[in-house]
């Protein structure tokens, strides 16, 4: 199959970007979207053109590095998959596919389709951890965790920090990401001592980075490759309100 790509090209963070259109060489429909870009890049290199820069790593939906807006949707059509898990068979022969970087003020474009998501790292550094003595190993069942809490914490921990929530939200809000990171620890006994300090610090950093506010539109949940639920945002809002009253 062949498709036409309309791709955002941008030399550097400060240069102006523009769309370029490329016809692809013949593709195997069972290629992933990233493999398709590899093939296109081979072709561009052979023509002496600059290949399209895009971020990728595991290529199996677990690292959160890949992230493209495909026809205006972060990670493209389909629920619960990252860009690396999207296959060319979901497109039609001859279709024009628009590929853009994730758009948000706090995610500046570095080059072409690669954005700088270190804003997420700075939020994590403010509280996305538990402070523990890392001495000898603890007894396996010394800290009992109820099954439902463990399951819910695991659901939150499935977040791979790709930024699709920010990219899809009309307000470029990072609430789904931050709430998942707050909840994965707040649901477990190990996370309790720093629970209130954590939520205040992470939300403060989120605001400092310039992300928008949640207006509960539900786009993020739909775009999330890990199906993180909006309910975690409600949980974080409650944690935040309690932390305010406790006055940490």
């Amino acid at each position, binding site marked *: 199959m062949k498709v036409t790509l309309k791709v955002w090209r941008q030399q550097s963070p400060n240069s102006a970007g523009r769309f370029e259109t490329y016809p692809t060489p013949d593709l195997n429909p069972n290629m992933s979207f990233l493999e398709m870009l590899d093939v296109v890049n081979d072709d561009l290199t052979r023509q002496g053109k600059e290949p399209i820069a895009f971020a990728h790593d595991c290529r199996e939906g677990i690292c959160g590095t890949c992230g493209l807006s495909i026809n205006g949707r972060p990670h493209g059509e389909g629920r619960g998959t990252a860009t690396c898990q999207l296959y060319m068979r979901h497109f039609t022969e001859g279709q024009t596919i628009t590929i853009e970087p994730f758009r948000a*003020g706090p995610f500046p474009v570095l080059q072409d389709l690669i954005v700088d998501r270190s804003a997420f790292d700075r939020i994590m550094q403010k509280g996305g951890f538990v402070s523990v003595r890392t001495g000898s190993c603890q007894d396996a069942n010394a800290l009992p965790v109820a099954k439902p809490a463990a399951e819910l914490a695991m659901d939150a921990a499935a977040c791979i920090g790709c930024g699709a929530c920010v990219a899809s939200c009309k307000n470029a809000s990072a609430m789904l990401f931050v709430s998942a990171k707050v909840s994965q620890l707040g649901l477990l006994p190990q996370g309790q001592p720093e629970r209130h300090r954590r939520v205040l610090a992470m939300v403060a950093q989120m605001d400092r980075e310039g992300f928008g506010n949640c207006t509960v539109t539900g*786009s993020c949940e739909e775009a999330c490759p890990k199906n993180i639920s909006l*309910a975690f945002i409600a949980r974080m809002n409650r944690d935040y309100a309690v932390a305010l*009253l406790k006055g940490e």
Partner: protein
Amino acid sequence: MNLIGRLFCSSVGKKLIMAATGLGLVLFVFGHMVGNLQVFLGPEAINRYAELLHFSPELLWVVRLGMLTLIGLHIWAAFQVSAENRVARPVGYDGSPAPVETTYASRTMLMSGLIVAAFVIYHLLHYTVRVEAINFTGRSFADLKELSEAGVERHDVFKMVILGFSKPLVSLFYVVGVGLLSLHLSHGLRAMFQSLGLLTHRCGPLIRKLAPVLAWVLFLGYVSIPLAVMLGFGKEALN
């Protein structure tokens, strides 16, 4: 930092303000609707109810200033949040595609809210301040009086409502205003429970279903009054 600073300056704090003031306003509009529906019980019921609301001017003003504070804070937070959201995405997507999974109501909250505010101002001038020029009936609502059973002169709210809604364009404006309020709340109620931290895994599904139902109840409850008057309800009171 202290509680007030965090509440008024942080993103989540501002949403808490919006939700708490929204809750106050929602409780008011439901109470106001139930009160108004007494018009269907006839002149005596609604006029006595209006008399009761006015029994203490001091208390009435406390409630009015409270409502003004609620709506002021709500609008302040709405503008803050909307302005921050606009700058959070300086470069948009190609062709501005509608964001996935959003409802019309959720994308137009600021606009529906502002039109509701304009409607509320008209409504207050119409039935509370009773400005004659905007009721289009050529009669002064302030002069509509009747005697209560105890022989005390009181305002004839029943007659005022029938007279007020006998003008089709005025009734239409009320239907539009209340329609937009319901649109605002069809998303606002869900957002409110979310901001207050109640839309969790356990109660979320129920509240999500309940929000549009409550918005419809509000719409039908309020609209029934101008609609009934347009269809001839209470005509005899005008003779």
